[in-house]
C-alpha cells in the first residue's frame, strides 16, 4: 500500500498479541508488550494511526488529582504520569511545566474547592493549595478579575498529543512490532487457544487479542465475543486554538470546577506555543462526525474572553473537534477474559493520553496473570523523532534543515521528508499535519500549500493536487 511499506504481507506468522486500534492506548500497549518480549501486531483500520479519539484532546498530562479515588482510571493516570516523566528525556518528549488552577467563578463554586483539595490528597496529590482571589491576580494577572478563588495543582502539565503516541509506536516497531494500517477486522474465531482473525487484507493468527478500538470498542467486542460489556456513547468536544501571541497571556492551565459529566472548558497553552480553549461536551450518535459548529465556536470564543479578557485581541488559528469514547460507566472498562485469550480496554476518555502508559502496564499485568510470560528484550532501541515542541530544539535552528516550508509553524523540508518516510510514514495530509504541524499555523496553508503539494505529490493516499495539463 502506498506510503506503508510494512504492510503488504504480514511477516512473522503467528503473533503473541494483536492490538486492535492504533490510538494512543494501542500505541502505548504495543510499546509495553514489545519491550516485555512479546511478538506484537497492531491493526489500524484508518489510513493512519491516531485517527479516532486520539486526534482531538486537550493534551494535558494529568496528575489524577480529580479522578475518583481508588478507581482504575486514577491508578492508570498516576502510573502513566510517573512513567511519562521517567521516559520523556530518553524519548526526547517535551513537558510544559505549566501547573493548573481550578478556578471558582462564584461563591457556590468556591464552596466546592475544599472537596477538590480533599480528593486530590486522597489521590496522593498533596501539593495542591488554596489561592485567594488576590493571590490568583498575582499569579495570573491577565485572568478575569471575576475569578473568585482557586486551587493550585502545581504538577498538572502540558504535553504533545501527537508526537507522544507516535514515538511509543515507533519504539515498538524499532524493537520488533509490526503495524498494519488500512486494516480492518472483519471477523475472528477462537479455537484451541488461537485466534484466527479475518481482515480486509488477509488472515492473521494470534494467541491474544487486546481490544484498543476506542470509539468502536463495543462493536469490535460484539464481533469477537458475541456481546459487549460496555456501550460506547460518543461525546464530542470542540476546541478553539488561538494564535501564538495569545500563549503569553497565561502560564497555568485554567480549569473550571468540574461537574458530574465533564471536566468543563479549559484554557491552556499548547506545547506548540498556542493557546487552546475547549472542549465542549456534546453527546451524539455518530462515532466519526467531528464537525465543528460556528455558534459553538463563537460561544467558546466568548467563554475564552470571559476567562481572559485580553483574548479578544488575539486571532484564532484553528478549530477542531475530538470525540471521546465515553461509556455508561464512569470508570475505564478494562477486563480480561482468560478463557477467550482476550482483554478488553474500553471507555478510555480524555485522560487516556496520560493514562496510556499506565493502562499498558496494567494490561500487561493482566496478561501475565493469564499465564503468559516472555523474556524482556535486551538493548532496547530508542527511536529518533524530531521534536515539535517549542521548548525543545527544533529542526529549523539546525544546519541541513532544507529550508522552512511552513512559515507559521517553522516546519522544515527535512521534517516533512522525515514524516513521509520510514515505517510509520504519513500517508494522508492529516497524518502529515500531525507529524509536522505543516499548515496548522495561523495562515492555514496560504503560504505553503503549493510547496507542500509538490513535495507530497504521489506520496499520499488522497493527493493534495493534480498536475495541470
Amino acid at each position, binding site marked *: 500500500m502506498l506510503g506503508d511499506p510494512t504492510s503488504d504481507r504480514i511477516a512473522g506468522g503467528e503473533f503473541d498479541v494483536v492490538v486492535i486500534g492504533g490510538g494512543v492506548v494501542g500505541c502505548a500497549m504495543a510499546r509495553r508488550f514489545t519491550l516485555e518480549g512479546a511478538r506484537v501486531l497492531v491493526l489500524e483500520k484508518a489510513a493512519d494511526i491516531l485517527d479516532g479519539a486520539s486526534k482531538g484532546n486537550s493534551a494535558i498530562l494529568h496528575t489524577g488529582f480529580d479522578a475518583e479515588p481508588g478507581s482504575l482510571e486514577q491508578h492508570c493516570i498516576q502510573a502513566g504520569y510517573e512513567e511519562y516523566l521517567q521516559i520523556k528525556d530518553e524519548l526526547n518528549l517535551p513537558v510544559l511545566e505549566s501547573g493548573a488552577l481550578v478556578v471558582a467563578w462564584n461563591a457556590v463554586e468556591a464552596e466546592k474547592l475544599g472537596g477538590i483539595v480533599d480528593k486530590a490528597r486522597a489521590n496522593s496529590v498533596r501539593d495542591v493549595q488554596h489561592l485567594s482571589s488576590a493571590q490568583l491576580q498575582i499569579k495570573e494577572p491577565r485572568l478575569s478579575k471575576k475569578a473568585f478563588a482557586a486551587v493550585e495543582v502545581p504538577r498538572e502539565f502540558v504535553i504533545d498529543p501527537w508526537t507522544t503516541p507516535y514515538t511509543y509506536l515507533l519504539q515498538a516497531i524499532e524493537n520488533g512490532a509490526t503495524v498494519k494500517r488500512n486494516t480492518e477486522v472483519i471477523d475472528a474465531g477462537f479455537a484451541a487457544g488461537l485466534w484466527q482473525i479475518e481482515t480486509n487484507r488477509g488472515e492473521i493468527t494470534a494467541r491474544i487479542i487486546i481490544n484498543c478500538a476506542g470509539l468502536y470498542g463495543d462493536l469490535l467486542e460484539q464481533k469477537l465475543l458475541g456481546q459487549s460489556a460496555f456501550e460506547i456513547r460518543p461525546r464530542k468536544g470542540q476546541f478553539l486554538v488561538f494564535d501564538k501571541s495569545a500563549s503569553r497571556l497565561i502560564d497555568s492551565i485554567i480549569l473550571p470546577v468540574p461537574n458530574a459529566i465533564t471536566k468543563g472548558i479549559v484554557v491552556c497553552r499548547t506545547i506548540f506555543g498556542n493557546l487552546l480553549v475547549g472542549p465542549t461536551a456534546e453527546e451524539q450518535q455518530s462515532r466519526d462526525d467531528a464537525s465543528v459548529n460556528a455558534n459553538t465556536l463563537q460561544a467558546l470564543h466568548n467563554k475564552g474572553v470571559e476567562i481572559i479578557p485580553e483574548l479578544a485581541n488575539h486571532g484564532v488559528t484553528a478549530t477542531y473537534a475530538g470525540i471521546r469514547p465515553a461509556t455508561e460507566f464512569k470508570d475505564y472498562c478494562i477486563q480480561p477474559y482468560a478463557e477467550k485469550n482476550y482483554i478488553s480496554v474500553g471507555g478510555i476518555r480524555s485522560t487516556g493520553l496520560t493514562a496510556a502508559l499506565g493502562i499498558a502496564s496494567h494490561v500487561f499485568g493482566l496478561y501475565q496473570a493469564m499465564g503468559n510470560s516472555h523474556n524482556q528484550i535486551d538493548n532496547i532501541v530508542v527511536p529518533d523523532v524530531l521534536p515539535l515542541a517549542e521548548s525543545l530544539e527544533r529542526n529549523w535552528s539546525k*544546519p541541513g534543515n532544507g529550508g522552512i516550508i511552513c512559515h507559521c509553524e*517553522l516546519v522544515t523540508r527535512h521534517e516533512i521528508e522525515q514524516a513521509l518516510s520510514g515505517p510509520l510514514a504519513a500517508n494522508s495530509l492529516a497524518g502529515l499535519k500531525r507529524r509536522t504541524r505543516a499548515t496548522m499555523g495561523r495562515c492555514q496553508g496560504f503560504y505553503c500549500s503549493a510547496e507542500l503539494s509538490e513535495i507530497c505529490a504521489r506520496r499520499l493516499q488522497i493527493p493534495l493536487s493534480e498536475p495541470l495539463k
Partner: protein
Amino acid sequence: MKSTQCQVAIIGAGPGGLSIATELKKLGVDHVALLERESTAGGIPRHCGHSPFGMREFKRVLSGAEYTRRLAAQAEKAGVEIRLATTVTELGQYGELSLSTRDGRQQLKAERVVICSGAREKPRAARLVSGARPQAVMTTGALQSMIYLKRQRPCKRPVIIGSEMVAFSAFLSCRHAGMKPVAMIEAEPVVSWWRLAALLPRLLGTPVLTNTSLESIEGKDKVRAVMLKRPSGELATIDCDGVIFTGQFIGESTLATMAGFAIDTVTNSPLVDAYGRCSNINYFASGNLRYPLKTAGQCWREGRDMASLVKASLDGKLPDRWVQTNA
C-alpha cells in the same frame, strides 16, 4: 560567512520591500539587507495570475512574475544584499534579528529594520465556519501559488467564498487551470468589488449568489458539498470538491506582535507614528502589513517614501518619541 551587521534590514522582498531597499541604496545607505523567507524574491505578485503589473514602475504591462523579476533585478543592480530562504524568527529590542536559514540559526544586527511582511487572507478557521474539516479548503493565495508556481490544481469544481476583487482573480485562476467554479458566494446584497464584474463569471456559467451565506462544509477526506443559506432563509446544498476563501486580508504581523509592538486589533497591523515607525522606533512597518489591501504598485510607491523616512531616521533627523497616529 554572511555578514552579521547592516545598516538597514528589510523583512520581506515583495514589491514594497524591494522598493525600499533599492531606494535606500540610491539615497546612499551603504549596507542594505533584504531578507526573504521564500527561495525567490517578489512576494505575492509572483503567483497572481492577473495582469497588469508595472504600469507605474516600468511604463508597460507585465505579468506579476515578470514584474517582480524586474524589481528584484533593479534591487540587485543597486547593490542590495538579497538573502533568500532566510526567515526572521524573532525581533530584538535594538534591531537584533534572529534568523533561520538552511544552515541553521543566524543573527543579524541592523540599525533600522523595516517590516514588509505583507498581508494574507483570513482562512476558514479564523472565520469560525461550521462543518467537517476535509482537504481542499483553501485561500486564493494557496490556490494561485499552486497553479502558477507549481502547475498543480487542488480540485475541479470549487465554490468561491467572497466577492472582493481577489475573488474574481481566484475565478480567473480557476478557469486558467481548467477548473470550473460551481458558484461564487457573497453574504452581502451586492458584490464587494465593481458591480459589473459579476457579469463575467455569470457569462461563463458560474452563478454569483449574493445575500447568500456559507452555513457549513461537508465531506470526509475531501470536500463533497457546501450548505448555503439562501436569501429566503432556506438551506441549499451544492455539490463541489473544494472551497476557496477569498479576501478579508489581514496584516501578517506575527513578528511585531510577538515582539510586543502595539497592534491595531482590527487590521492586525502594527500601529505606526507619522514616520511609519512601530512602537519600537527602531522598526518601521510598510506596505500591506500596515494597511491591507493595496496593490503592488501602491506598495512600491509607498516604499520609496518610506525609504526617505528610514534614511532620515539613520541620520538622526526624526524625533525620539513615538506618537501613534494611524489606525
